[in-house]
């Protein structure tokens, strides 16, 4: 089988997902041998800006018109476009206050000089182009990325978890923070794959991997309300990473403080 031709791109984000790729220290050279990487601005010069790609891995969210163009260009070159990281999949932390005016934020930070900037609310790739596959995580998990890459090299589509963090949390036999300590844990509605990292460190899941498919947010909100959390606090947490996902748009019907 011919080596897949690959491009790795970054839009707006922290570059963490590209760094995860570079963090595959033990595997990087094998990986580079099995893939024909033509574009990876963060790690190489001599990038081919025109070739057709079998796989485009795109990190980061779209926050400005130029990025829409960039993304469309990548899409037109790529057979498979894979969104990597929560920014690319859900809009990322920068999508947190999308419902508040970005213009207002801009003025707050730049004052009047900022008025010419072209800014659009932070959005995931799928708002603009077809995304064939989404590997979420803030940042993506190294093992998951490697397995996905190996599947692609093998000629298959990757298999990713479609169940919640709680499942992995129980497999690890963590003490449940939601039930035992009454913490605001998003494990029940966040997609697994991190091996319930935060609960294993005694920290509640803050949902950095984004919502699980068919997340029952209404039930999660209810049970958190019953535990005494205010709607504002719950909303804040839901939208930290899942800001752009529809399921997280719980209506602010009450103002709890």
């Amino acid at each position, binding site marked *: 089988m011919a080596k897949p031709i690959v491009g790795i791109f970054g839009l707006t984000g922290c570059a963490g997902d590209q760094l995860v790729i570079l963090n595959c220290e033990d595997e990087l050279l094998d990986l580079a041998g099995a893939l024909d990487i033509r574009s990876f601005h963060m790690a190489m010069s001599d990038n081919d800006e025109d070739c057709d790609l079998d796989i485009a891995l795109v990190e980061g969210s779209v926050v400005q018109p130029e990025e829409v163009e960039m993304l469309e260009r990548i899409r037109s070159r790529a057979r498979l476009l894979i969104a990597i990281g929560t920014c690319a999949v859900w809009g990322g932390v920068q999508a947190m206050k999308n419902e508040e005016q970005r213009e207002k934020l801009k003025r707050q930070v730049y004052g009047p000089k900022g008025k010419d900037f072209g800014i659009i609310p932070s959005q995931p790739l799928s708002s603009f182009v077809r995304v064939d596959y989404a590997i979420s995580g803030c940042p993506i998990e190294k093992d998951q990325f490697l397995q996905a890459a190996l599947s692609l090299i*093998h*000629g*298959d*589509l990757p*298999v990713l978890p479609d169940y919640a963090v709680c499942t992995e949390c129980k497999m690890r036999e963590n003490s449940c923070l939601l039930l035992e300590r009454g913490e605001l844990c998003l494990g029940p509605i966040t997609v697994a794959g991190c091996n319930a990292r935060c609960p294993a460190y005694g920290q509640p899941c803050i949902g950095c991997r984004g919502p699980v498919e068919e997340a029952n947010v209404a039930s999660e909100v209810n049970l958190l309300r019953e535990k005494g959390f205010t709607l504002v606090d719950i909303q804040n947490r839901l939208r930290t990473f899942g800001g752009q996902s529809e399921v997280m748009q719980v209506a602010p019907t009450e103002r709890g403080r």
Partner: protein
Amino acid sequence: MNRENIYFPHLAQITRILPQIEDHKLFGLTFVDKSMKDNFSYRPGQFVELSIIGTGEAPISISSSPTRPGTVELCVRRVGRVTNALYNLERDDLVGIRGPYGNGFPVEELEGNNLLLVAGGLGMAPLRSLLWYTLDNRERFEDVTLMYGAKIPDEMLFKYELLSLLDRPDLRCMLTVDKDEEGIWPAHIGVVTTLFDQIEIDPSTTYAAVCGPPVMYRFVLEELLKRNLSKDRILMSLERKMKCGVGKCGHCAIGYKYTCLDGPIFTYWDAINLPELI
């Protein structure tokens, strides 16, 4: 491990690939191990777990008849990971096979009766096994009728093989297409159920074997029941999500039955008792 490991696939070589219709191909497989090749026996209606190593496994009905040993034939539709990976293989490549699994058609019980096979779409895959089994043991059965429907002529599986059966005196072969815009179809036109007007069913001596997409069952069952066929003489081959094929992984459980152990052949009476079955 002192006993046979039930999860190990046996290597088999792809000896033949016959494209059928778009995204459906018939694969002829021969076991690499000689004793497997000689001793692999099965019933019509049983299935195997097909392994593409590194990709995964999928349950696939055996399309060939045990009366013609040596090669196992699988008719596979390309839908996902495993089936896709199979399509990337070529003649002489190796795959893995476990099985045969499932109950299969109760052929001994069917002997001495009239048989009505009703298939739609990919449902022909398991029924082809039963069809050739009856044809190769023709003397053991009374009247045998096949009804098979496809949307258009180009979507009929095993088309030439089946067309060649049209003139066979010991089989009533009724092939139909829903539509034939090019006007090339030599047989009946109309959905499968329209074929029922052309036949007589003696409920006391007939078994029906039905396999097709979920929507087809409803209409075919209606016809069969109208003709007073008893509920446990209607046999259906059903599909479920399945991982292990041997009753461990749980996926194919419906109520109190496992599709892989108690099925995939169920009677209509089973279906009534298992609300989720169809």
